[in-house]
C-alpha cells in the first residue's frame, strides 16, 4: 500500500501536530509553519496536476477499512473540493503565521490548530460516507479544546460547550442519517456501498430521502451556519482567539456548505414528502442573508459585527448551492473561497485595532486613519471586498450565486440582492466609524508593523486577483464527480 498525495495533505498536519505539541515555543512555531507550508505545497501540486472536464474523483486512494460493512478508506478530489482543499491549507499557513509567540502554551495551541486543519482537509477529501462522518466528528474535538483552553472573554468554556453541544446534536443525527442511507439504499442485500460516487445512483425512495435529507441538512445547517441555526456563532467567534478564527471562521463553516453540495444534494435528488427541502433551504439562506445583515447593523462590538456579516455572506453560498444550476453552484464554490479570503482579513484587522486601542466597541474607537495610515489603506480594500465591490473577488461569487438563483426563481435573487444594499450600510459604518473622526484618535498608537502587513498582503492580492480572473478557479470546476450536481 502506498500513501497518495491526498493522504499526505491530512496526515502531514496531524503528525506535525503530535510533534509540535511537545516542542518549545520558538521551535514549535517554526515547525508548525513548516508543516503548514508543506501541506500547502502538496495541495497546490494536486491543483496544478488536476484535470478539468473529468467526471470522476481524481487522485483517488482506496483500501478496505471495514469490508464487512462496506466501509472503505476512500479519498479523492473533484472540481468542487479541490479549491477548498487548497484554501484550507492556505488559511492554515496564515493562521500559523498569525499566532503570536506570546500566546500561552503556544505549542499546544498550534498543535490543536494543525489537528483541526487535518480534520477539515479530511472532510473535504473523503469520498466514503463513513469516512466523511469520522472526519466530521474528528474536527470538532480540537475545535472544542481550542475554544475551551484558549478562548477569550469571560466564559470561553460556556461558548465552547455551546458550540460542541449544538454541532454534536446535529452530527449525531447525521450518524442516524449515515445508517439510514446504508439501510435504505436501493440495492440488493450485500451490495451496499458508502462510496459517494456510487450513492447518487442508488438513492432511496423519495419519502425516505425526505427524512434522510432532513437529518443531514440539519447537521450541515448548524455548521454552515444557516439561519436560524446560527446562534452558536456569535458566542464562539467572540470567544475564539484571532489566529483560530482564520481557519475556524474562514474554513470550518465551509465544511457545512460543502456537505450540502457533496452529500445532501447528490445523494437525495428528490427529497420531497410533506414539502420539498430544495425550496426550504434556499428560503432560509435568503433569510440568513437579510437577518445576518440586520444583526450586523445592530452590533456595537466590531468582532460581533464581523461574525454576523459572515452569517449573512454564508447565505449567498447556500443560496447558490440550491440554485441547482451550474452558475449557482460554481458561484457558491467561488464564494466559499472568497469568503475564506475576506473574513480572516476582517477578523485580523479588528484584532489589531483592539490590540492598539484596547477596545472593540465601535463607540470608543474612532479617528484611527491619521494614526494608522497603512492599516487604513488595507482596511479600505478589505472592507470594499467584503461589501461586494464589483472588481474585487466577492462580487464575482455574489453575482454568480444570484444569477443562478435568478435562473431558479427570480424572487430568491431579488430578496438576496437586498442584502447587497444592506452590506455597505454596516461595512461602511464599521470602517468609517473606526477610521474617521473630527480629531485623530486621542492617544498615539502604532501602525501595523511590517510582519502584519506581510500577513495580510497575500489575502489582499487574492482579493484583486480573484476579482479580475475568477475563470482560473471555475476552469477546474468543470470536473464534477457525482451525478446530480451541475457542471
Amino acid at each position, binding site marked *: 500500500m502506498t500513501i497518495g498525495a491526498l493522504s499526505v495533505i491530512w496526515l502531514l498536519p496531524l503528525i506535525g501536530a503530535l510533534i509540535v505539541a511537545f516542542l518549545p515555543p520558538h521551535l514549535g512555531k517554526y515547525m508548525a509553519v513548516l508543516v503548514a507550508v508543506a501541506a500547502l505545497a502538496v495541495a497546490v501540486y494536486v491543483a496544478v496536476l488536476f484535470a478539468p472536464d473529468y467526471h470522476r474523483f481524481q487522485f483517488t486512494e482506496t483500501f478496505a477499512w471495514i469490508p464487512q460493512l462496506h466501509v472503505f478508506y476512500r479519498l479523492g478530489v473533484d472540481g468542487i473540493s479541490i479549491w477548498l482543499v487548497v484554501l484550507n491549507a492556505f488559511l492554515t499557513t496564515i493562521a500559523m503565521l498569525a499566532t503570536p509567540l506570546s500566546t500561552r502554551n503556544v505549542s499546544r495551541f498550534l498543535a490543536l490548530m494543525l489537528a483541526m486543519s487535518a480534520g477539515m482537509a479530511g472532510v473535504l477529501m473523503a469520498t466514503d460516507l463513513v469516512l466523511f462522518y469520522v472526519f466530521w466528528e474528528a474536527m470538532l474535538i480540537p475545535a472544542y479544546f481550542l475554544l475551551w483552553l484558549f478562548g477569550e472573554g469571560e466564559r470561553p468554556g460556556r461558548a465552547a460547550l455551546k458550540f460542541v453541544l449544538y454541532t454534536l446534536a446535529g452530527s449525531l443525527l447525521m450518524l442516524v442519517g449515515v445508517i439510514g442511507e446504508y439501510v435504505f439504499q436501493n440495492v440488493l442485500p450485500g451490495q451496499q456501498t458508502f462510496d459517494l460516487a456510487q450513492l447518487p445512483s442508488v438513492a432511496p425512495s423519495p419519502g425516505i430521502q425526505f427524512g434522510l435529507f432532513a437529518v443531514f441538512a440539519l447537521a450541515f445547517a448548524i455548521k454552515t451556519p444557516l439561519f436560524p441555526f446560527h446562534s452558536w456563532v456569535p458566542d464562539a467567534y467572540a470567544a475564539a482567539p484571532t489566529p483560530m478564527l482564520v481557519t475556524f471562521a474562514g474554513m470550518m463553516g465551509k465544511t457545512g456548505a460543502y456537505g450540502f453540495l457533496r452529500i445532501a444534494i447528490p445523494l437525495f435528488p428528490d427529497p420531497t414528502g410533506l414539502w420539498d427541502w430544495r425550496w426550504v433551504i434556499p428560503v432560509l439562506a435568503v433569510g440568513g442573508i437579510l437577518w445576518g445583515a*440586520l*444583526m450586523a447593523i445592530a452590533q456595537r462590538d466590531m468582532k460581533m459585527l464581523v461574525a454576523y456579516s459572515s452569517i449573512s455572506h454564508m447565505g449567498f453560498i447556500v443560496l447558490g448551492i440550491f440554485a441547482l444550476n451550474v452558475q449557482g453552484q460554481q458561484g457558491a464554490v467561488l464564494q466559499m473561497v472568497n469568503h475564506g479570503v475576506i473574513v480572516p482579513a476582517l477578523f485580523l484587522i479588528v484584532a489589531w485595532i483592539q490590540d492598539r486601542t484596547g477596545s472593540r466597541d465601535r463607540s470608543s474607537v474612532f479617528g484611527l486613519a491619521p494614526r494608522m495610515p497603512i492599516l487604513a489603506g488595507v482596511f479600505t480594500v478589505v472592507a470594499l471586498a467584503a461589501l461586494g*465591490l464589483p472588481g474585487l473577488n466577492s462580487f464575482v461569487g455574489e453575482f454568480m450565486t444570484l444569477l443562478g438563483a435568478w435562473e431558479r426563481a427570480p424572487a430568491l435573487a431579488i430578496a438576496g440582492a437586498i442584502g447587497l444594499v444592506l452590506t455597505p450600510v454596516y461595512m461602511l459604518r464599521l470602517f468609517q466609524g473606526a477610521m*474617521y473622526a*473630527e480629531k485623530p484618535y486621542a492617544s498615539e498608537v502604532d501602525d501595523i508593523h511590517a510582519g502584519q502587513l506581510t500577513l495580510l498582503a497575500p489575502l489582499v492580492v487574492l482579493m484583486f486577483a480573484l476579482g479580475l480572473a475568477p*475563470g482560473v478557479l471555475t476552469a477546474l470546476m468543470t470536473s464534477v464527480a457525482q451525478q446530480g450536481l451541475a*457542471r
Partner: protein
Amino acid sequence: MNQTLALLILGFPAAGAIILAGRGWRMPRIVTQIIGPLAVWSSFIVTLNLFLNHVNDDFTYWTWIKSGSFELPFDLLIDNLSIFMCLVITGVGGLIVTYSVGYMAHEDGPSYARFFTYMDVFIFSMLLLVLAGNFVFLIVGWALVGLSSYFLIGFWYQRRSAVLAARKAFVMNVIGDVGMILGAFVLFVSYHALTYSSVFSALKGPLCLVCVNPSQAADSPTIELAAFLLLVGAVAKSAQLPLHTWLPDAMEGPTPVSALIHAATMVTAGVYLVGRMHPIYDVAVYAHGAVAIIGAVTALFAATIAIVQTDIKRVLAYSTMSQIGYMFLAVGIGAYAAGFFHLLAHAFFKALLFMAAGNVIHAMHDEQDMRKYGGLWSQMRPTSVTFLIGCLSLVGVIPFVGFFSKEQILGAAFSKGDPLTLTVWGIGFLTALITGFYTGRMWWLSFWGKPSAQRPVEHPHEAPAVMMIPVAILAVLAVVGGFIQTRALGTGPALVSDFLEKVVTKPNWEESSGAVGAGIATMALATALFLAAYRLRPWSAVVPWAQRLLEHKYYFDEMYDAAFVRPMDAIAAIGYRDVEELVIDGAVVGAGEAAEATAGSLRLTQSGYFRNYVLVFVAGAIIAAVLLIVRAAS
C-alpha cells in the same frame, strides 16, 4: 496595436493611481503635480489617436469567467460613442485635474497625493464604464465610479457631514448597481449572453440566435423589465428622481471634485447608458417613455429648488440635476445625438462654472454663501467674465454653446409632436425659463452690486495661472463650441450628430418648421428672466410655504429617513434584542437547560458536561454499529 492602445486609455490613469497610492505621499509634491494630470492627458492623447484613425472594434483580452453556458470575456468596445465619451472624460477631466494642482495646493503632502490618487481612480472608473464591451464590466465601472465619488466626497474626513454624505452617495449608488445587476440577469436568462454585441444582435432580429420569431424579442415584457432595471442604475448614477438625494450632499467634496462629478464623469453615465442600450430602449417603449418623463420632471424639480439655494455650489448642483434631466429627456424621446450634444456642451460650461466658482470660494476663504459675496465683478475680473460666460451658456443665451444644444433638444421634442413629447417639451420650456431666473439670481447676487458687509475678504486675490488657464480654455469652448452643430437651426454643420449617429439611432421624424422659432423664443424669454432676476431678488417672501418646501428640497431626505433609514435601524435593534437573543438563541439555550435538568435528574452530571456527551456519542456509535452489523449479517 489598436488593441494595446485601447487598453492604454485605461492603463494610464490606473498606473497614475497606483504610483500615487503606493509612493505618492512620500515623494516630493512636484511628482504628484506631474503624475496626476499627466496620467489623464496621456489617456486623452491615446483617445485622440484612436479617434483620428477612425478605430471601430471590439477588443477581447481574456476570458473573465466560464461557468457552464455563462461565458464572459474582458473586452473593450471602441466605437464612435465610446470614443466621444472618452474624449469628454479625458479632455474636460484633464483640465479639471490640472486645475486641482492649484486648488488643492494648501493640502498637506499625504492628502495632496491622496486627492490625485482618487482623481485618477475616478477617471479610470469612468473610462472603464464607457469602454466596457459587456454588462459585467459595465457594472464594474459603474460601481467603481460610485466608489470614487465616495472617496472624494468624503475626502475631508475630519468633517462628519462629509463622511455621512459619502456613505449616502455610496449606498444610493449601490441601489442603482443592484438594479443593473438584476437587469443583466434578465438579459442573460433571455439571450444567454452578456456581451453587448450578442445581446443587441439577438434583439435586432436578423441575427436572432435564441428567439424563433424576431418580433418575440421586441416589445416583450422581458425586455421592458430589463430596460426598467437598467434605468434604476441610470437614475441612481445620474441623480434623477427619486434617487437624487445624494447629489447636493456630494458638495461636501472639494470643488474640483464637484466639477468632475458634474461635468465630465459620473452623472452623465446614465445618459451614456441609455444611449449605449438604445437597441433595448428602441423596443422597450414604456421604459423609454419613462426615461423622458423622469428627465423632464427632474429638470423642473431641480430647477425649482435651485431658486432658493444660497450656497453657490448647491445652486450649481441643482442646475446639474436639471440639465441632466434635459439629457434624459432627449435620449428618452429618441433624440440621442441631441442628448449627447448637450452632454458635451454641459461638460464645457458646468466644469467652467464649478471651477470659476472654485476660484471665488478660494478667494473668499472657503465661504460658499452667495449672500456674503457681492461686488466681485470689479475685483476678480477674469473669473467674473468666465463665470458669466458659463451662466449665459447655462441659460442658453444666443450664441453660447448651451443655446445650440438645448434648442436642439427642445426642438426635437417639439417636432416629434406626440402627446408625450409635447408634454415633456412643455416642462422643458418651463424649466428653461426657471433656469434663466435662478442663474440670474446667482450671478447678480455673487458678482454684482456692492460687496456684502459679511464678506470674509475685503480684497480678494485672483486665482493663479494654473487654475485660470483651464477655466479660460473652457470659456472659449463655451463660446465657440456651439458652432460645431448648428444644423438644428436649419443650416451649418452637425458634427456631433453625424459622428454619433453611426452608433445610436437617428430621430425618425422631421424637424418641424415652428421648432426653431419656438426655440429662439424660449431662449429669448430665458435671457429676459436672467436679466430680470436682478430686480426680482426678494421674491421669496411672497409665498413663504413654497419657500419652505423648496428649502427642504420637497422633504425627500426626511421622507427617506422616516421610510427606510430609521425603520431599518429600529428593526435591527429590536430584532437583535427581542428575536435574536430571546427566540433564536433562547430556544437553543432553553433546550440545553432542559437537557441538563433531565440529565441532572438521572444523576449523570457529576463532573462536567462534556463527559456526558462523549458518553452519549459513544453509546450512539455502539448502537449504530450493532444495527449495521445485524443488517450486514442478515
